[in-house]
């Protein structure tokens, strides 16, 4: 080995600060390999993202014509529950009577519903605390102290605008992107 090692040491080390051509080749080769490895890593990680067939389910149309005032339905969007609630005038009034500024997640009912469809409260049925499905959408379920939704997992109370009022949840129930494509049909997503 001695013969080999001396030949390496005998190589001209001069020029700028002892940088050899071999150092450049080493760095260039390692960088090339490194870039290749990272490029190969990308599809390995990206394959775990939602696939095209899952994303294709990200938009649904819901017919709301059968929901009477004061009633609510649960439906599925992106494999998650959606609450569609037809608010009574009293429930809307109760929501509007609250000073939004005093809430944990300050929002008015108007900010959470669409112009011309103020009675339609459409939210994800996913508690913003740890993701359980709150009660209150179906007939006979407890609606919590504020007449909206109540999450049985850790006791979060939502009001008639599905705003967090009491309990550990940090935010109001999320309002998804949606639009009324007719008076009785909603497109979610």
């Amino acid at each position, binding site marked *: 080995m001695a013969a*080999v090692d001396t030949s390496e040491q005998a190589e001209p080390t001069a020029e700028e600060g002892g940088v050899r051509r071999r150092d450049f080749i080493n760095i260039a*080769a390692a960088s090339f390999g490194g870039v290749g490895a990272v490029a190969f890593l990308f599809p*390995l990680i990206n*394959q775990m993202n939602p*696939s095209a*067939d*899952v994303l294709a389910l990200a938009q649904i149309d819901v017919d709301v014509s059968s929901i009477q005032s004061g009633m609510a339905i649960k439906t599925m969007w992106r494999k998650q529950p959606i609450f569609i609630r037809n608010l009574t005038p009293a429930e809307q009034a109760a929501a509007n009577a609250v000073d939004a500024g005093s809430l944990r997640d300050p929002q008015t009912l108007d900010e959470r519903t669409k112009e011309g469809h103020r009675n339609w409260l459409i939210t994800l049925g996913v508690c913003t605390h740890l993701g359980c499905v709150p009660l209150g959408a179906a007939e006979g379920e407890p609606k919590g102290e504020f007449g909206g939704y109540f999450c049985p997992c850790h006791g979060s109370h939502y009001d008639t605008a599905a705003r967090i009022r009491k309990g550990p949840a940090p935010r109001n129930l999320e309002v998804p992107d949606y639009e009324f494509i007719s008076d009785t049909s909603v497109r979610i997503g």
Partner: protein
Amino acid sequence: MSFPWAEQYKPKHPLMRWLDERLPLPRLVYNSVGKGYPVPRNLNHFWNFGVLAGLALTIQIITGIVLAMHYNSNADTAFASVEHIMRDVNGGWFLRYLHANGAAFFFAVTYIHIFRGLYYGSYKAPREMVWMLGLVIFLLMMATAFMGYVLPWGQMSFWASKVITGLFGAIPIVGEPIQHWLLGGFAPDQATLTRFFSLHYLLPFVIAGVIILHIWALHIPGSGNPTGVDVKTPQDTVPFHPYYTAKDGFGVFLALLLLAVFVFFMPNYLGHPDNYIPANPLSTPAHIVPEWYFWPFYAILRAFTFDFILPAKLWGVLAMFGSILLLFFLPWLDKSPVRSATYRPKFRMFFWILVLDVLILGWCGGMPAEEPYVMISQLGTIYYFAHFLIILPILSWVEKTLPLPNSISESVLGETAEAAPAAALAKA
């Protein structure tokens, strides 16, 4: 595990010293593929192919684990789940094509690796265990590749599973019960698919385990070399790192380039279009052949067309398995003390005839089972067995070999270098 002049692992950083006393993993790496493993200085690029096979296994395991996240081993949905991977999963087409062509790549480099061993006498003492463990890996590879091919549950998948398990049906008396046991039924179905998926996932890790034994056994005597002459002095070796990490790195670069050509530009070239038709137990494809890497063995299987004491079907199966099992005895069939074909002119000629013979068998294996391919297969099969059972034993007695160089360094540097190592030794 190494030559006395191997560099010793001396961790400088206190943390590395701490680790070395408790879990000497860096030391193991250093002594296996680092500066601590002296390797003959004259290895040519045929010595890249072991590393390339290891790389292929790594690619197969990584892409396979990822594909298993999306694949569905249910007979009703397996085919659709593969199409789901191709069309819906992000980059799924890339991962599947890499896995499918990766299998072909694995076999290609392994065949070159095996023929490298045959040419340079790598199977001879003291490396018999290395050779035999390599054959075990090869058999495991064949089983794994076959079961993987069944998973997409296309027409070729289905009929491959039927035909290959049918081989076991050739065994007298117990054959049929064994076939039913393998399939978990009377024909390939749900039970077959689920167990093949389970084993297809398991076996690569068994292969990885045997590869560790293969490398362990190799590192006892150290790597062979193109002259076949033993390492004698420090002048005969260079440290694995950086010399062979660099040389292997270059080989890896070229090999990946070739693999990329297949994956990106001709991903289905080595495949069979019939496998894009869902499995149909009522209709066999007109021309059924295995993947190219099984063709030589398939030709041997089909070469037996007449009953001779035993049924033809059984002869075919025995010959096919025998053609590989035979290789386990190679270290004792070829008794010539000279390892490398470089110094065995007659052996070299017969080696190339064997290569040609295997290529011809492969060509016949890919052709329909009709004349003239059957007759060519028969002649090729006879020659294959004759090479190992008749030619090699005789050759090792009668062949007049060429004079061997005194040492590896002499073969590299020529006669004039004789003085230099002596001087270097004196210095050391």
